[in-house]
């Protein structure tokens, strides 16, 4: 086995590490701690944060990549790049059916000619295979697995609750109730899912017979990456240029304003489309840059983040410019100037800490929009690589399925539910963070 560190993995881990460092720093800084404490006291905020952490966990598991060692002599590794999540979901990944099958089904969705028996719904290779010929036990088996799953989930939830008791004692003022209720609900859903998934395709299979649950879980990483890496990429430019324009004024301000007005005036989708097209040409004409298809898809993902970042830094930049203009005239900045404090020091000591709340608000507010944008862009064909599993590609392949008779509804529904939960949690969390950091906007 050989570990593979894709660029996106590296950046993602960097981001998580950065988040941890930021958290440690925020603990020590009074106003940061006060604001985050407000977030922690909000039930909605904590529940949303819990959901986001669960999604993050999936994404992290999906970001540890490796190539399996091939059997035989010598150092030969599989071309396919797998992640820890793939390994955990081996049963889902390695048991494809031929084509569509409904959730929990034992038979295929479409009739086929079966040798000797005429046209009928063929048995699935894996879904419900353990039942053998005893198909009458299908319902009972599902009920049993659900019950087992619920039991397991309840036990796990209880264990989590007990494990969380010391946390509650250490920080009694935080809304732990919301956290544990959310975790409990998650356990009660995940338990039956896990039990059922061992024998069935819980959310059905898609056109080429892949398990839909597997696809949705794999989509999470793509969504989170785009939502976070994009912001990370655009942040330095937005902060630097915004503060510089606001503080320096004069021709520097003019140039930066010109820059973002120009970029802003190109319709976002078209700029992205043009850039993605060009990038695709670049990737296609230089196949030698990438040793595996995973790397190529990864490059396209990162490029998409970069392009989205390029089109989205202008908003934050303008906001920071305006805020800096205001701060520059504030009396404590004037006092610092009178005391002979250098401009660089004024920027880092007086301006930057006082615009940080805007940056934090922008990060959390942009996230949900970017997750939604990924789906639309991938749908239009200017998003991630068609081989990358994402909500957008899932919807794209599933869009014609509603027109089938009878309808294939499960892929879309699964994508819808997962995306809705992710974006809703992000939106709610963003609201709470904004209220905590900017009391002026708190409503």
């Amino acid at each position: 086995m050989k570990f593979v560190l894709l660029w996106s993995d590296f950046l993602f881990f960097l981001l998580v590490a950065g988040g941890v460092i930021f958290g440690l720093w925020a603990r020590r800084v009074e106003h940061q701690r006060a604001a985050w404490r407000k977030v922690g006291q909000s039930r909605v905020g904590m529940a949303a944060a819990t959901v986001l952490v669960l999604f993050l966990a999936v994404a992290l598991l999906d970001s540890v990549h490796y190539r399996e060692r091939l059997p035989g002599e010598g150092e030969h590794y599989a071309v396919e790049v797998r992640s820890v999540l793939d390994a955990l979901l081996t049963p889902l990944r390695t048991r494809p059916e031929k084509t569509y099958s409904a959730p929990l089904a034992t038979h295929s969705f479409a009739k086929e000619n079966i040798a000797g028996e005429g046209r009928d719904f063929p048995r699935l290779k894996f879904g419900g295979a353990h039942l053998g010929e005893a198909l009458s036990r299908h319902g009972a088996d599902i009920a049993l697995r659900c019950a087992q799953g619920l039991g397991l989930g309840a036990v796990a939830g209880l264990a989590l609750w007990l494990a969380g008791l010391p946390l509650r004692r250490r920080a009694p003022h935080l809304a732990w109730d919301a956290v544990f209720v959310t975790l409990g609900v998650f356990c009660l859903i995940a338990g039956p899912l896990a039990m059922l998934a061992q024998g069935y395709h819980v959310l059905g299979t898609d056109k080429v017979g892949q398990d839909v649950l597997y696809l949705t879980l794999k989509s999470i990483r793509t969504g989170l990456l785009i939502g976070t890496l994009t912001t990370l990429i655009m942040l330095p430019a937005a902060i630097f240029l915004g503060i510089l324009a606001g503080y320096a004024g004069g021709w520097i301000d003019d140039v930066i304003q010109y820059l973002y007005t120009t970029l802003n005036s190109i319709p976002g989708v078209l700029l992205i489309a043009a850039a993605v097209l060009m990038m695709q040409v670049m990737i296609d004409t230089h196949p030698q840059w990438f040793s595996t298809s995973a790397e190529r898809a990864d490059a396209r993902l990162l490029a998409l983040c970069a392009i989205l970042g390029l089109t989205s830094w202008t908003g934050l930049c303008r906001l920071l410019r305006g805020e800096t203009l205001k701060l520059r005239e504030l009396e404590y900045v004037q006092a610092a100037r009178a005391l002979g404090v250098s401009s660089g020091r004024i920027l880092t000591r007086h301006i930057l800490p006082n615009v940080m709340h805007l940056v934090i608000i922008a990060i959390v507010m942009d996230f949900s929009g970017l997750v939604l944008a990924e789906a639309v862009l991938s749908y239009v064909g200017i998003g991630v690589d068609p081989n990358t599993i994402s909500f957008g590609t899932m919807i794209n392949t599933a869009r014609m399925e509603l027109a089938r008779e009878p309808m294939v509804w499960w892929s879309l529904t699964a994508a819808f539910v997962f995306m809705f939960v992710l974006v809703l949690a992000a939106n709610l969390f963003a609201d709470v963070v904004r209220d905590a950091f900017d009391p002026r906007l708190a409503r």
Partner: protein
Amino acid sequence: MLAYLIRRLLYAVPILIGVNVITFALFFVVNTPDDMARMQLGVKHVTPEAIEKWKAERGYDKPLFWNAAASGAGKLTETIFFEKSLKMFALDFGRADDGRDIAREIRQRMGPSLAVAVPVFVLGLFAAISFALLLVYFRATYLDFAGVVLCVAMMSVSSLFYIIGGQWLVAKVWHLVPISGYGEGLSAAKFIVLPVVISVLAGLGASARWYRTIFLEEITRDYVRTARAKGLSERLVLFRHVLRNALIPILTGAVVLIPSLFMGSLLIEAFFGIPGLGSYTIEAINAQDFAVVRAMVFIGSALYILGLLLTDISYTIADPRIRLQ
């Protein structure tokens, strides 16, 4: 006032030039025309001759900036930069890959785009403002809370699902309107009802919530207290004082979008088969028709800049503080 407008108009010129340079760089410098040709032709057909032919057909065989081979002014004009970029200022967009004149195509497709985009804009604004006003009137009650929750939930649904779900429910299950397509004249009405309703719904959550914040911010102002101290009823305070002040940022914020309505909506037009500029763009993207994408980027930017100009004008009309100073 006039001087101000002329100044704003002049300011638009360097921005358009900037847009032009960016697109040029994106389309011709990041990748050479040879790269584009190779990709378009596909692996099997790549021969030096095929590439040259492909370039010649599209006029990409000239030098980028300086044509030493040409004579006189041709040294500058017979270049890709002049032919493909500068000519756009004269609204000469050249031909698409299928040989049709892009400018003509754009003129034809503007109508259907507007037929959908204008009702969406007007109704969307009206619906969002009304909904926000309702929430503000019942502020700090359960109705308000439920409304905000609804807004956040609506914001959290991808627009793709609004379209897919709406198409499925209204057109396929209820058979109220055709799933997609477009007709001439009045017959277009039955085709545009559903896309309009869906677009309005998809945008309602975010904008209603945003307008609600604007209203609530306005309602804490001192002049509102003055109005109440006069003995005005809450309804009059809201409609006569708060609404009028809050509409200034709302309407001027919306004005910037008006010119861009010509561009249509990519998703809606693609899903509902409306032959507007949005679907034209999507088709061009999918067919990797660089000339069309380039033209649309240029037009889109120009319309956005026009929108900025209109915003400035609308401010001076809507706000007496600016109009009279």
